[in-house]
C-alpha cells in the first residue's frame, strides 16, 4: 500500500512537471529547428568533411576584372567574388591537390558590367572556356575526370547558359564544357535546360550590413497583410504585358490594385526594409528570371515569402524545407491569391514565422564578411560535402574522352 501511494505521488509529480514544461515551452517558444530533406544540416560544420583546392589563375580572370569595376562587389551577383575570398582563407582549403575532394576555379564571369551596372554575358562563355583550357593544360586534374570533381560559381540570371534572355539561354544551353562539373548558381527551375542535375542553388547576394542597419524593434506590430514593391509591367521591354514574369506580376496588379489588404506599388520608398518588417506576407513573384533578392529580404525580416514562380528551385532546397516556410502559389492561381492567403490557418502562419525567426535560417541566406558559422558559404560547402564521396566512375579511363571541345556556338570558340 505504501509503495502504491509513493508510486502514485511520483507519477503525479512527473505528469504535472511535464505539463508545466510543455506550457512553458509553448509560451516561450520563438523558433523551431529547421530540417530539410537532407536532415537537420543547417548547422553542420564542413571543416574536416571535405577539402577544396583553389586553382591559381592569372589575375586577368579575377583580380584585374574586379579592379576594372569594383561595383561587382555590391551587386547581387557578388557571390562569386566573395566565395573566392572565403575559400582562400578557409580551413577547408588545401594546398595539396592530391588530397583535394573538390577543385575550385576562381573566374569572375559576371563582372563585365554595363555603365548601368548590369553584367553583359556575351564574353562569359569565352572567358570560361579559356579558364578551363588553362586549368586542363597546366594541371592534370581536369583531364582525369573531365571536370566531374570541379565546381564553378555561376550566379548569373540563367546560370551557365550565360544569357539574360530566357529563349536565348535555352537555345544555348549550359556551356558544353561544364556538363560534368558541379554548378553553384542562383537560378533554379525544375525541368529547365539551365539547371543541371546536382547543381547547388544559392541565394543572390544581399548586403548584410545594409539589412542589419534597417532593423526595427521586434515588438512593432505587423499590420500590413501583403507587401510588394517592384514593377508589374516592364514598359521598356514588354509594354503589352504577358511576357514579363509570364504575366504573373501584371495579374497581381490587375486583380489586387484596389484591395486594401495588398500594399503593392511600383514606388521605391526609403522605408522598404522597415515596411517589410511590418508585413505578414511578402510577395516574391518571378521577373525575367524566377529568382530574386526579395526572398532573402523576406527571410531576414521575418516576412513570410509568397513565391509565385512555377517549378522554381529555391536556395539550398535539400537543407531548407521551403514548403513549410513559404507559401507557394501557382501562376495560374494568382487571381485567387487573396482567397489562398486568407484561408491559411493562423497556427500555420505562426509556425512559419517561428521557422523564419530561427537565426540559423537567416544566417544561411547571407554572405557576411568575414564568414560566420552557418552562413551561405558554409551551406555551399555542406552541399558539396553531401555529394561526397565521388563515385568511381568519374575517373576516366586512359584515353577516354567525353567532352567535345568544339561543341557549342561558333562565337564561343574565339579565344578570350
Amino acid at each position, binding site marked *: 500500500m505504501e509503495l502504491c501511494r509513493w508510486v502514485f505521488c511520483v507519477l503525479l509529480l512527473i505528469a504535472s512537471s511535464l505539463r508545466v514544461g510543455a506550457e512553458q515551452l509553448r509560451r516561450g517558444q520563438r523558433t523551431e529547428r529547421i530540417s530539410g530533406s537532407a536532415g537537420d544540416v543547417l548547422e553542420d560544420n564542413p571543416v574536416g568533411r571535405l577539402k577544396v583546392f583553389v586553382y591559381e589563375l592569372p589575375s586577368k580572370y579575377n583580380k584585374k576584372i574586379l579592379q576594372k569595376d569594383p561595383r561587382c562587389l555590391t551587386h547581387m551577383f557578388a557571390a562569386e567574388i566573395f566565395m573566392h575570398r572565403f575559400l582562400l582563407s578557409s580551413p577547408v582549403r588545401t594546398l595539396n591537390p592530391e588530397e583535394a575532394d573538390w577543385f575550385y576555379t576562381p573566374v569572375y564571369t559576371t563582372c563585365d558590367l554595363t555603365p*548601368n551596372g*548590369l553584367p553583359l554575358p556575351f564574353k562569359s562563355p569565352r572567358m570560361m572556356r579559356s579558364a578551363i583550357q588553362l586549368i586542363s593544360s597546366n594541371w592534370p586534374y581536369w583531364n582525369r575526370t573531365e571536370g566531374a570533381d570541379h565546381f564553378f560559381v555561376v550566379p548569373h540570371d540563367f546560370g551557365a547558359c550565360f544569357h539574360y534572355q530566357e529563349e536565348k539561354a535555352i*537555345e544555348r544551353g549550359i556551356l558544353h564544357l561544364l556538363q560534368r562539373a558541379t554548378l553553384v548558381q542562383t537560378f533554379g527551375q525544375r525541368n529547365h535546360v539551365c539547371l543541371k542535375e546536382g547543381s547547388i542553388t544559392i541565394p543572390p547576394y544581399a548586403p548584410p550590413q545594409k539589412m542589419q542597419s534597417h532593423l526595427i524593434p521586434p515588438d512593432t506590430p505587423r499590420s500590413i497583410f501583403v507587401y510588394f514593391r*517592384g514593377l508589374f509591367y516592364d514598359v521598356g*521591354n514588354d*509594354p503589352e504585358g504577358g511576357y514579363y514574369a509570364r*504575366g504573373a506580376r501584371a495579374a497581381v496588379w490587375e486583380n489586387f490594385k484596389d484591395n486594401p489588404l495588398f500594399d503593392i506599388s511600383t514606388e521605391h520608398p526609403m522605408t522598404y526594409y522597415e515596411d517589410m518588417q511590418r508585413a505578414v506576407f511578402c510577395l516574391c513573384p518571378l521577373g525575367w528570371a524566377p529568382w530574386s533578392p526579395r526572398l532573402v529580404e523576406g527571410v531576414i525580416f521575418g516576412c513570410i515569402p509568397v513565391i509565385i514562380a512555377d*517549378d522554381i528551385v529555391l536556395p539550398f532546397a535539400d537543407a531548407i524545407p521551403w514548403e513549410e516556410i513559404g507559401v507557394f502559389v501557382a501562376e495560374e492561381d494568382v487571381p*485567387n491569391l487573396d482567397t489562398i492567403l486568407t484561408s491559411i490557418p493562423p497556427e500555420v*502562419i505562426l509556425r512559419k514565422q517561428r521557422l523564419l525567426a530561427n537565426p540559423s535560417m537567416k544566417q544561411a541566406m547571407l554572405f557576411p564578411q568575414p564568414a560566420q558559422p552557418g552562413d551561405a558559404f558554409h551551406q555551399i560547402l555542406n552541399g558539396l560535402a553531401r555529394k561526397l564521396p565521388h563515385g568511381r566512375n568519374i575517373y576516366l579511363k586512359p584515353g577516354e574522352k567525353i567532352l567535345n571541345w568544339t561543341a557549342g556556338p561558333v562565337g564561343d570558340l574565339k579565344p578570350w
Partner: protein
Amino acid sequence: MKLSALQQSYTNRRSNSFRAAGGLDSSVDGSGKSPAAIFWLVLHGLCCLISLVLGFRFSRLVFFLFFSTASNGGTSGLYPSTPFLGTTADIAGSLSFQANPSPNLELPPNRTAGGISSSRVVVGRHGIRIRPWPHPNPDEVMKAHRIIERVQREQKLQFGIKNPRTVIVVTPTYVRTFQTLHLTGLMHSLMNVPYDLIWIVIEAGGTTNETASLLAKSGLRTIHIGFDRRMPNSWEDRHRLEAQMRLRALRIVREEKLDGILMFGDDSNMHSMELFDEIQKVKWIGAVSVGILAHSGNTDELSSVAHKKAEEENLPPPVQGPACNSSEKLVGWHIFNSLPYVGNGATYIDDRATVLPRKLEWSGFVLNSRLLWKAAEDRPEWVKDLDKLDGVREEIESPLSLLKDPSMVEPLGSCGRKVLLWWLRVEARTDSKFPARWIIDPPLEVTVPAKRTPWPDAPPELPSNVKEISIQEHTEKRHAKSRASRSKHSSRSKRKHESRTADPQVSSKVSEE
C-alpha cells in the same frame, strides 16, 4: 535601391543599343537570313506602317491569335477579352511604336540541348489572368484582419511584457460641467489598456449618481469613494485638496492590500497607450515625462506679446519630468518654466488667464503599490511609511514626499525622452450650468416657434448662435452657452435671457458651479 537598379538595368540591357553594340551576341543570328526571317521582317515593317497610320501601337497579338498553335498554347493562359485588351490599349497608348528586340510571336523552338525534357513552363507570351470580379471580398478581408490580430497577439506575447502587473489608477474628481468630458476621455483610455485595471475614483463633495453612472459605463473594476470636502474655487486650494484626495486613495490601497502598479490618472490629462506599457517596467517608484500644455488664456494683447517674445528666446520644451545624465542616471528634474506667466497665472477657476501646473505633477509618478503596504518585507529603507504622513501639516506636493531619498526614482520612457502623457487643465466657468447626467428631463418645450427667429431681444453680435430652427439646436445653444464661452458680454446677457426662459425648466436640474 537594388530593385530599381535591377529593373532599370534590365530595361537598358534589353534595348536595341546593346544588341547593336554587342555584336557577338547569340550566334543564332550568325547564320544568313533565312526566308522565315525575311518574312518576319516584312511583317514587322507592315505592322509599323499600320501603327503609323492608326496612331497607336498595332499589336501583333492579332497575328498571335490567328497563328497560335495547340501544342505550345496549352499552358499559356486564358484571354479574358475585354479587360485584357483594355490594358493593352492603356499601356500601348503612346504614339511611339517600339521595335521589339525579338519578334514576340516566335514560339519557343523545341531545340533543347541534350536529352533534358523541356520545361512544362513555357517561355513566351502569356495571358494576364484577371478574375471576373477583381475586388476585395469582405469575408476574406475579415479573415485577414483576424489573422493580423492573431499575429500581433503572438508578437505581444513574445516581445511584450512577460508578467504584466495590475494597474491601479487613482483619479480625484468632482461634479462639474467638464467632468463628463474629462472622465469619458480617461475612461476610454483605461478601457483600452490591455492589462488588469483597478480604478480608484475619489470624488470631492461625496459620491454622486452623476459620477457613478459614468463609471458604470466603463465595465472596469472601480472603487468609488466620496471625500467630505467640496472643491474650492481657487487653484491653490484645489491642488491641496486633490493631494489629500490622492492620499486617501493611497490609504485605501494600503488597507485593501491592492497589488500592482499605482499611477495617478488625473481626469483632465491625456494618456497614451505606451504609457501603460512603459510603467510595467517600474520596480519601486518611477517618473515619466509629462507634456505641459499650458493653455495661454484669452488673447490678451499684452500676454500674447510676452508669449511671442518668450518663444523667440527659445524656451525649453514644456515638459516636466526626470533629467538624466549621459549614463542614464537620474540627476535632476525638468520643471515647467512658468516665468513667462509670472503674474498672469490664474487664481480662480473663472480666470481667463493661464492655468499653471504645479512644480511636479502627481501624474508624472508611478509607484509600486507594495511601497504603501504596512509591513512589506522587501520594502526599501528609503521609503517613508504612509502613516507618518498623516499628521503632517505641510503640503504634500508630490509623491517625492514619500521618499527619504529622492534619487532612487527610476526614470522611465527612455530616461524621460519620451513624453507619454499630457497635462492640460481646462474647466468651465464656475457658474456654468449643465443638465444632470446630460439627460434632458423633462423634454424641452418650444419656447419660441421657429418662425419667430431671430429672437426679438437677442444681441446682434452673435447671429450665428441664433439661427436655430430646431429644438435640438436650441438645446445645443444652451449647452454652448453653459460651456466656457469666451466672450463675456454675450454670455452674460444670454444667461440672463436664458435664465428667464429656462427657470421653469431648470427647476428639476441641479445647477452646479
